[in-house]
C-alpha cells in the first residue's frame, strides 16, 4: 500500500450473488452465513434475521436506521452476545456457542462503535496486544524473557509497519489516551489487523472521525480488500457506502429488508420506507449523510 | 436470648482483642507471648472456658481439671469469667468440675437450649484434641434448668428475625437510595448507623437518662445533619470532579475507617449501654417473650418505613428520587434538580441509618465504636438481595436477611449465623445480580 495522500480508486467487485436479488440471496462464495438468528430483550425483538450471506473478499455494508439491530447483530455474530435461537457459521464452521475470543482466533475480528483503545497502554503495546499466538502471553513462559524475545521483536516490526501505514508511527510510545478520536479509530483498526484476520467487521468506522481523516480511513478499508480480506461494516454515511461498498445489506426493525448493489439498493422501496417513512421525496444521501444533517442519537 | 447476648459479648471481646492485637503489632511488631500464665512448655495444651450468668461473667468460681497420670489443677474464674488451665497431654480426656458451692447464692449450672454440645451439669468431660486445646463454657441460671419447646423457639426466632430485619431495613433503604442515585457502594454507611447510637449516648450523657426520648430525637436530627454535611463537604465536591465509581467506593472505605476510629477515640474500645437496654421481658405465650424495647423498636421501625414509603411514592422529591435511580441523564434532561435530590437522599438515608443505629444499640445490646461495621455486610446483603438501587427491594431483602440470620441459629452454631446471610449475598450476586425486585436490564 502506498502512503501517499492520493485517494485510492475503488475497484468494485461484481457478480457476488446467485440468482434473483432478494433479502437473503445466496452468494457465490459466502464467508459468513447466518440462519434464523433471533435475539430478544424482554418483549423487544432486536434481531430476527431469517437468512443472510456475506460474500468473500468484498466490502459489504450493513445499513439501516437507528435501532435496526445492526450492532446487536454484530455482537451476536462475534460471540459478544448470545441469540435466543439460530445458527451461523464462518468458513463453514458453526459459531453457535463459541466464545468471543475463540471467534476472534478463527479470523473474524470486530471493532466497536465506541472506540476501545486501551488508554493507559502505549500505542505500540496496543498493537502488540493484537498479535496472536504469542508464547509470552502464557503465564509461565512470560517469566522467561528468552522464550518470547524473538517473537516480540518480530511483532514490533510488523506493528511498526502497520503504524507507518496508518500514520501513527510517530505516536508509538505515547499512551493511547492521548490520541484524538479519529486516531483511536485508526489504532483500533490497525490493532485488529495485527491478528491477521480473514473477515474484518467494523462498527461505524467513520463515526466521530475528523473529515480530514475520512479519506485515509476509506483507503485503508479498500486496501483490506486488496490484500484479500473481507470487510463487513456498519455505516450511516450513505456517500461512503456508495463509494466503497460492493454489496449492501439493509436492516430495519431487526430484519434484513433488502440487499443488493449500493446504487440499486437505494432505489428499493423497502429501503426508502425503512429510512424515511413519510419523507420519501428527500434524497437518501442528504438524510443519512452526517455532514449535511446533524447525527441523531447513537443507537444501542 | 441469653446465649445470643453471650455470643455477642464474646464477639465483642474478640473485637477488643483484635484492637489489642493490631495495637500490639504496631508497638511490638514481633511475637506476642500467647499466654504468659498457666500454659507453659511443661503444660503446652490447655482447657479453657467461660463462666457466665445470663451473659454476665461470674468471677471467683472454682474450676478443677483432673486427668490421667494424677493430673489435677484448680483455678478460679477471672474477672471476665474466663479460666485457662494448662494440661500435659493432648488427645486425652480431662474432667472439668465447677464447684457449685463457690457460685453466688440462688443460681446453678443450667443447660443451654441453643447449643447442642452444651455442658451438662457442673461436671464435664473435656477432650483435648489434636489442636491441643478445648474450650468449655458453663452457663449459670436461676435454679433448675429448663428446655424450650421447638415451636416456641421457632416463633421466638421469627419475631427476633423480623425485629432485626426491620432494623436492617432502615439502614438498607438508605444505602439502596444512595447507590441508586449516585452509584456509590457506600462502606461508610456503617458509620452512619453507628452515629445514631453514639450521638444518643453522648446526648444522654449530657441531659441524663430521663431525657432519653429527647436525646433520641436530637440524635436523629443530628444524623440527618451528618448526611447533609457528608454530601456538602465530600460527596458533592467529588461529583463535581467527576470522580469514578471505584474511586468513590475506596473514598467511602477511607471515610469509614476515619470515622470508625474517631468513635473509638471518643468512646473507647468497650461497650456502653443506653438507658432501658435491660428492660423487663414480657411473656407473650409459652416461652416466647419480648421486651418493651423490642416492641417499641418494631413499632417505630414500621412507622418510619411506612412514612418513608409514602414519601418515596407520593411526594415530588420521592418521585424525583426514583426517576434518578431509574435513569439519571433522562431525569436531568427532564428538568429534575439532580444535585438537590441527591442532597435530600443523603439526608434521608443518613437519618434512617442513624435511627437504625439506635435500634441496633438496643438489639445487640450495647454501643460500640464498630457496631455499624458488624452489620455492614448484612446491610449490603439485604440491599443486593432486594435489587441494588430499589428501595422497596431493600425492605424485603432486609426482612429475609433478618429472619435468615436469626432463624439459622436454630440449626447452626450461633457464631456462624452471619455466614448464611453472606452466602446468600454471594449467591444473589452470582445468579440474580438484579435482586428480587430489580429489573434485568439495570445490570450490565
Amino acid at each position, binding site marked *: 500500500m502506498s502512503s501517499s495522500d492520493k485517494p485510492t480508486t475503488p475497484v468494485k467487485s461484481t457478480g457476488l450473488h446467485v440468482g434473483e436479488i432478494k433479502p437473503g440471496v445466496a452468494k457465490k462464495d459466502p464467508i459468513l452465513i447466518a440462519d434464523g438468528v433471533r435475539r430478544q430483550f424482554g418483549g423487544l425483538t432486536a434481531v430476527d434475521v431469517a437468512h443472510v450471506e456475506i460474500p468473500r473478499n468484498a466490502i459489504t455494508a450493513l445499513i439501516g436506521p437507528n435501532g435496526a439491530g445492526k450492532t446487536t447483530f454484530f455482537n451476536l455474530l462475534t460471540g459478544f452476545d448470545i441469540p435466543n435461537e439460530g445458527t451461523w457459521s464462518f468458513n463453514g464452521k458453526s459459531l453457535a456457542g463459541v*466464545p*468471543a*475470543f475463540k471467534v*476472534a482466533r478463527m479470523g473474524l*475480528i*470486530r*471493532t*466497536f462503535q465506541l472506540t*476501545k483503545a*486501551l*488508554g*493507559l497502554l502505549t500505542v505500540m503495546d496496543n498493537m502488540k*496486544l493484537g498479535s496472536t499466538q504469542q508464547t*509470552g502471553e502464557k*503465564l509461565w513462559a512470560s*517469566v522467561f524473557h528468552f522464550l518470547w524475545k524473538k517473537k516480540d521483536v518480530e511483532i514490533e516490526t510488523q506493528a511498526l509497519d502497520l503504524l507507518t501505514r496508518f500514520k501513527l508511527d510517530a505516536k508509538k510510545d505515547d*499512551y493511547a489516551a492521548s490520541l484524538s478520536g479519529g486516531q483511536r479509530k485508526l489504532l483500533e483498526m490497525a490493532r*485488529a489487523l*495485527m491478528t491477521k484476520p480473514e473477515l474484518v467487521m467494523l462498527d461505524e468506522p467513520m463515526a466521530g472521525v475528523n473529515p480530514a481523516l475520512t479519506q485515509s480511513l476509506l483507503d485503508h478499508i479498500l486496501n483490506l480488500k486488496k490484500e484479500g480480506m473481507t470487510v463487513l461494516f456498519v455505516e450511516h454515511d450513505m456517500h461512503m457506502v456508495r463509494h466503497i461498498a460492493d454489496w449492501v445489506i439493509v436492516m430495519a426493525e431487526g430484519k434484513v429488508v433488502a440487499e443488493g448493489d449500493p446504487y440499486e439498493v437505494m432505489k428499493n422501496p423497502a429501503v426508502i420506507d425503512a429510512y424515511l417513512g413519510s419523507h420519501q421525496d428527500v434524497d437518501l444521501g442528504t438524510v443519512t449523510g452526517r455532514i449535511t444533517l446533524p447525527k441523531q442519537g447513537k443507537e444501542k | 436470648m441469653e446465649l445470643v447476648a453471650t455470643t455477642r459479648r*464474646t464477639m465483642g471481646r474478640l473485637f477488643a*482483642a*483484635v484492637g489489642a*492485637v*493490631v*495495637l500490639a503489632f*504496631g*508497638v511490638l*511488631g*514481633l*511475637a*506476642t507471648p500467647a*499466654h504468659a500464665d498457666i500454659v507453659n512448655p511443661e503444660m*503446652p495444651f490447655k482447657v479453657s472456658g467461660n463462666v457466665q450468668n445470663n451473659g454476665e461473667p461470674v468471677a471467683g468460681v472454682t474450676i478443677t481439671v483432673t486427668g490421667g497420670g494424677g493430673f489435677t489443677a484448680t483455678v478460679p474464674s477471672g474477672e471476665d469469667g474466663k479460666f485457662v488451665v494448662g494440661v500435659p497431654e493432648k488427645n486425652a480426656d480431662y474432667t472439668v468440675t465447677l464447684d457449685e458451692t463457690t457460685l453466688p447464692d440462688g443460681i446453678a449450672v443450667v443447660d443451654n437450649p441453643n447449643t447442642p454440645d452444651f455442658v451438662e451439669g457442673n461436671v464435664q468431660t473435656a477432650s483435648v*484434641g489434636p*489442636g491441643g486445646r478445648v474450650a468449655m463454657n458453663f452457663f449459670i441460671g436461676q435454679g433448675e434448668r429448663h428446655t424450650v419447646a421447638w415451636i416456641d423457639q421457632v416463633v421466638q426466632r421469627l419475631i427476633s428475625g423480623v425485629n432485626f430485619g426491620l432494623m436492617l431495613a432502615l439502614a438498607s433503604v438508605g444505602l439502596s437510595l444512595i447507590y441508586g442515585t449516585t452509584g456509590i*457502594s457506600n462502606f461508610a454507611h456503617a458509620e452512619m448507623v453507628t452515629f445514631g447510637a453514639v450521638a444518643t449516648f453522648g446526648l444522654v450523657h449530657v441531659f441524663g437518662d430521663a431525657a432519653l426520648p429527647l436525646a433520641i430525637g436530637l440524635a436523629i436530627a443530628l444524623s440527618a445533619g451528618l448526611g447533609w454535611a457528608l454530601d456538602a463537604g465530600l460527596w458533592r465536591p*467529588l461529583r463535581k470532579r467527576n*470522580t469514578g*465509581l*471505584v*474511586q468513590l*467506593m*475506596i*473514598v467511602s*472505605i*477511607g*471515610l*469509614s*475507617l*476515619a470515622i*470508625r*476510629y474517631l468513635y*473509638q*477515640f471518643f468512646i473507647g474500645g468497650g461497650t456502653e449501654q443506653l438507658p432501658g437496654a435491660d428492660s423487663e421481658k414480657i411473656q407473650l405465650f409459652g416461652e416466647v417473650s419480648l421486651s418493651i424495647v423490642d416492641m417499641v423498636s418494631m413499632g417505630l421501625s414500621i412507622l418510619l418505613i411506612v412514612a418513608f414509603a409514602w414519601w418515596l411514592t407520593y411526594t415530588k422529591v420521592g418521585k424525583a428520587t426514583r426517576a434518578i435511580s431509574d435513569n439519571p441523564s433522562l431525569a436531568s434532561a427532564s428538568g429534575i434538580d439532580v444535585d438537590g435530590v441527591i442532597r435530600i437522599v443523603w439526608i434521608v438515608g443518613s437519618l434512617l441509618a442513624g435511627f437504625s443505629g439506635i435500634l441496633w444499640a438496643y438489639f445487640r445490646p450495647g454501643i460500640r465504636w464498630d457496631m455499624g461495621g458488624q452489620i455492614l455486610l448484612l446491610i*449490603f446483603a439485604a440491599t*443486593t438481595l432486594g435489587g441494588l438501587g430499589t428501595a422497596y427491594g431493600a425492605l424485603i431483602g432486609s426482612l429475609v436477611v433478618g429472619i435468615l440470620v436469626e432463624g439459622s441459629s436454630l440449626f447452626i452454631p450461633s*457464631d*456462624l449465623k452471619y455466614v448464611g446471610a453472606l452466602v446468600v449475598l454471594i449467591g444473589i*450476586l452470582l445468579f440474580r*445480580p438484579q435482586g428480587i425486585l430489580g429489573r434485568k436490564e439495570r445490570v450490565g
Partner: protein
Amino acid sequence: MDVLGILSSTASFILDPTTMAYALAGLGLAVHFGFAGLLNMGMAGFMALGAYGYAIGILTFGLPWYLAAFVGIGASIVFALILGIPTLRLRGDYLAIVTIAAAEIIRLFLLTSAFVDVTGSADGLSGFNGPGGTVTNPIAGAGGFNDSNPIPDGEYGFPPFLDDERTWYLRIVGGIILAVGVYFVWRLVNSPWGRVIKGIREDEEAVRSLGKNVFAYKMQALIIGGVFGALGGLMLAFSTNVNSGVYVTSLTFFLWTALLLGGAATVFGPLVGSAIFWVLQAFLGLLFPALAKAGLLPFDSIQAAQIRFILIGVALVLLVVFRPQGIFGNKKELTFVK
C-alpha cells in the same frame, strides 16, 4: 520525651516481618488491582488461609513446616478458584462485595467454636513454629520453622537493628521471599502476559475481541495475587501466633492504603507503601502518646495512640482523590479506569 527511642523503634519497622508481610500481600493486590483491575476487597481472607493453612498443616496434620507452608499456599489457590470461577464475570464493584463477604466467611469459620479443635477458635493457634517460638509443641517440635534457623544464638546487628538470631532469620527469609516475589512480578508485568492483563484492566471487551481468553487471564491474575496474599499470611505466621482477629476487613483496607500510598500499578509501590505505612504507624503510635504524656496534646495516651488509625482513613481518602497513582507512581500509569 524520648525522641531517640521513638526514632529507633520506628526505624526498626523498615525491616519488620509485619512490614514484609504487608509488602507481600500488597504485591498481590498490585497484581489484582493495579495490573489486572480486579477489585479484591478480601485480601485478608487470602492471608488468613496462608497463615492458618500453615499452622493447621503442622498442628493437625503433623506436616513438616516447609510442606505445611504449601498447604497455606494451596488453600489460597483453591480459594481463588472457588471465588474466581463464578465471580470473574461480574462487574467490578460486585467482585468487591463478593470478595469481602467471602473473606468474612473464612474469618467466621476460623472464629467459630464449632471447629475449635482445628482452628483454636477465638484463641487462635500457637506453638507451630517449634522451640524458640512462643509455645513448645511436641508435634512441631524439632524440625519446625525456628529449628531450621542456621544462625547461631546471639544478638546481631547494630541499633536500631540489634536483634536476636530468630528475628534476623525472619528478616532474611522474608527478604528472600520478597526479592523473588518482586522479581517474578516485575518479569510478569513487563511481559506479553502483563500486556494482556493491563489491557484487560483498561477494557476487557477489547482484549476479548483480539482473541484473548480474558477469563483465563483474570483467573491467573487472581491466583497469583492470592498466592502473594497467602505468602503475606505465612510471613505473619512465621513471626507470631495466628489469630482470626488479625484477618479482619480492616486489614484489607490497611493493605489498600499501603498499596495506594506506594502506587498500585508499580512493582515497587507495595514495598515502598508498606514501609511508609508501618514506619508512619509506628512513629505516630509512639509520638502521639509521648506528646500526650508530655502534656502537649489534650488527651490521654490511649486516645493519642488511636489518632493514627483515624489518619489512615483520612490518608486513604486524600490519596484516592488527589494522588490515585500513589506517591511515587507515574500519573499516566494509573488513573482509575472503571
